[in-house]
């Protein structure tokens, strides 16, 4: 596919090439491929950055925080407020998970903005695994907390008996589609943004290599690239925020039903 693209486009750039998983260290665990890939490397990098920020930047425990400590405290307060506003007091015990989730997605997205890097969240399997874990966890919390009563979540109160079967079906479908919408939203945003950047970068190369009058035209995709890059930074933050806040909302639903 990539060879055909290269010949057909004549640009020498495959926008999907950046998403390829490459094994760096081959590891085989009882017949299961557990290789340390470029994806794993960037996951470790994201985790390392987060630990550096939240553990080592806080080493001073300064009364008057420095630059890095401020960022760490700001992140803490940001997520803490998010959990408090959306879940309430009952959500306190899930705060570490929401914080880890938000920071992991945020740093994965942001590290993906570095040139030549790899965006771990641009892979559906990663976002889907996170979303499915959240979905199962939240459902489990709901069932443990409310028992059989949890099913009332699918039948809103004060509904006419005629509409009940229809609404229940809709509610169940919408509930089941949560992990899909949650994972696809993040994955699609990351993939689409990076693909678009690569395509427009390809246009610049294309115009420049065409030479002559076309050389001047390269300024147009270049300007667009600059604009899109800043937009992508916004999307990188926003998608992490959306991912975390939807998790909070799902958690709130499970804890308090409707």
């Amino acid at each position: 596919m990539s060879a055909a693209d290269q010949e057909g486009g004549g640009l020498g750039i495959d926008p999907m090439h950046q998403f390829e998983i490459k094994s760096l260290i081959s590891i085989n665990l009882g017949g299961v491929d557990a290789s340390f890939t470029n994806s794993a490397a960037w996951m470790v990098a994201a985790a390392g950055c987060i630990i550096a920020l939240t553990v080592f930047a806080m080493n001073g425990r300064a009364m008057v925080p420095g630059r890095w400590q401020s960022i760490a405290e700001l992140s803490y307060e940001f997520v803490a407020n998010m959990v408090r506003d959306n879940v309430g007091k009952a959500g306190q015990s899930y705060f570490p998970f929401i914080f880890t989730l938000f920071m992991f997605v945020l740093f994965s997205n942001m590290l993906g903005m570095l040139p030549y890097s790899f965006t771990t969240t641009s892979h559906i399997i990663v976002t889907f695994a996170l979303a499915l874990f959240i979905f199962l966890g939240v459902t489990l919390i709901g069932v443990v907390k409310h028992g059989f009563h949890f099913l009332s979540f699918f039948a809103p109160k004060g509904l006419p008996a005629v509409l009940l079967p229809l609404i229940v079906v809709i509610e169940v479908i919408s509930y089941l589609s949560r992990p899909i919408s949650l994972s696809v939203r993040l994955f699609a945003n990351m993939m689409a943004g990076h693909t678009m950047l690569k395509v427009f970068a390809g246009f610049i190369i294309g115009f420049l290599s065409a030479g002559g009058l076309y050389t001047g035209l390269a300024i147009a995709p270049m300007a667009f690239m600059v604009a899109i890059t800043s937009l992508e930074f916004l999307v990188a933050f926003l998608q992490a925020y959306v991912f975390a806040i939807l998790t909070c909302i799902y958690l709130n639903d499970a804890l308090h039903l409707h």
Partner: protein
Amino acid sequence: MPQLDFATFAPQLIWLTLVFGVLYLVMARVALPRIATVIEERRDRIADDLDTAAQLKRDTDDAIASYETALAEARTKAHSIAQATRDRLTAETDAHRADLEGQLAARIADAEKRIDAMKTQALTSVRDVAVDVADAITQQLLGDSDRAAAERAVDGELA
């Protein structure tokens, strides 16, 4: 599309679980409690400092109030001292003046008495001189004199 290459799913899932799990443990056990402690300590410290500041402000207000009271007291006291001094001085001056006036009045009365005496004496002398003069003139003109007649005439003129 590399995202749909199923062969890459297993390593991604394994490393995601591993990295996310470790990250969660580090966050939950180390990072977040530490940040919470620091933020909590700062909040307590700020609250303490604010309390201290409020206490100090109350102390200052008290000090200012007592200073104002002391000032007002001192002012009243100074005023009353000044008033007393003024009264005393006025009384002294009045007494002194009354004394002097008394003395002066006595001396004036004394002098008037003496003037009266001298006047009476002078008038008496005038009569004697007039009688002598009248007697002498009569003597010179008539060669004869009547002192008693002269005295009667002078008394008649002086009366």
